[in-house]
């Protein structure tokens, strides 16, 4: 039984609720949950908000393909990807990736794989709204490098 949850939504998500659906399943020995959040590292709290845009017709398809690629590499009991769009304030949750497996190495690696690909292959874009104005976030070479690790 494949247990995948893939959602794109403006509403916040509840990590506990998403984790709870794995309750009582004794084949699951390891669960890894990654939560990405709106970060403001500036000393002056410069960031008012992020605006997350996406390409609706493509997004869920891209995420589905990503999960299938992970399932082809690893034995996974459950996968959850939830990605938010719209306006998000500092410290708000942006993305949840949950992986469940009999083995911890699998749960860790599949989770990181999903995040590395999500960062480079899923059609989301961030715009920063700061006290100085608005600016689209530039893609980072380190994210491309992180993905490239999985392609060797």
């Amino acid at each position, binding site marked *: 039984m494949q247990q995948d949850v893939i959602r794109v939504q403006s509403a916040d998500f509840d990590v506990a609720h998403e984790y709870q659906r794995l309750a009582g399943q004794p084949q699951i020995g390891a669960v890894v949950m990654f939560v*990405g959040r709106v970060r403001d590292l500036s000393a002056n709290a410069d960031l008012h908000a992020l605006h*997350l*845009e*996406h*390409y609706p*017709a*493509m997004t869920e*398809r*891209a995420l589905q393909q990503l999960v299938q690629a992970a399932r082809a590499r690893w034995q996974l009991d459950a996968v959850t990807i939830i*990605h938010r769009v719209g306006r998000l304030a500092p410290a708000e949750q*942006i*993305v949840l990736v949950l992986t469940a497996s009999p083995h911890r190495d699998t749960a860790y690696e599949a989770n990181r794989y999903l*995040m590395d690909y*999500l*960062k*480079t*292959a*899923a*059609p*989301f*874009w*961030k*715009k920063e709204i700061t006290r100085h104005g608005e600016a*689209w*976030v*530039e*893609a*980072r070479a380190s994210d491309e490098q992180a993905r490239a690790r999985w392609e060797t």
Partner: protein
Amino acid sequence: MLTILYFARLRDVLGCASETLATPPATVRDLIALLVARGGVWQAELGGARVFRVAINQEMAQLDDAIPAGAEVAIFPPVTGG
């Protein structure tokens, strides 16, 4: 007919969210050449100086991919979600 969608910074800079072409080019490369020929911001954004991505019918595509009839082609900056 061909529908073209633009997203994020590209949409803002080009001042265009979507357009349609009555006679679609054969490949992504041909389409980009046609857009670059408009000059100005089109040339600046798609003419080689900046990186962009293309999807055909919601799948990531390459420059040499053929554009099928009635396709939805999306052009956008490298993604920054997650």
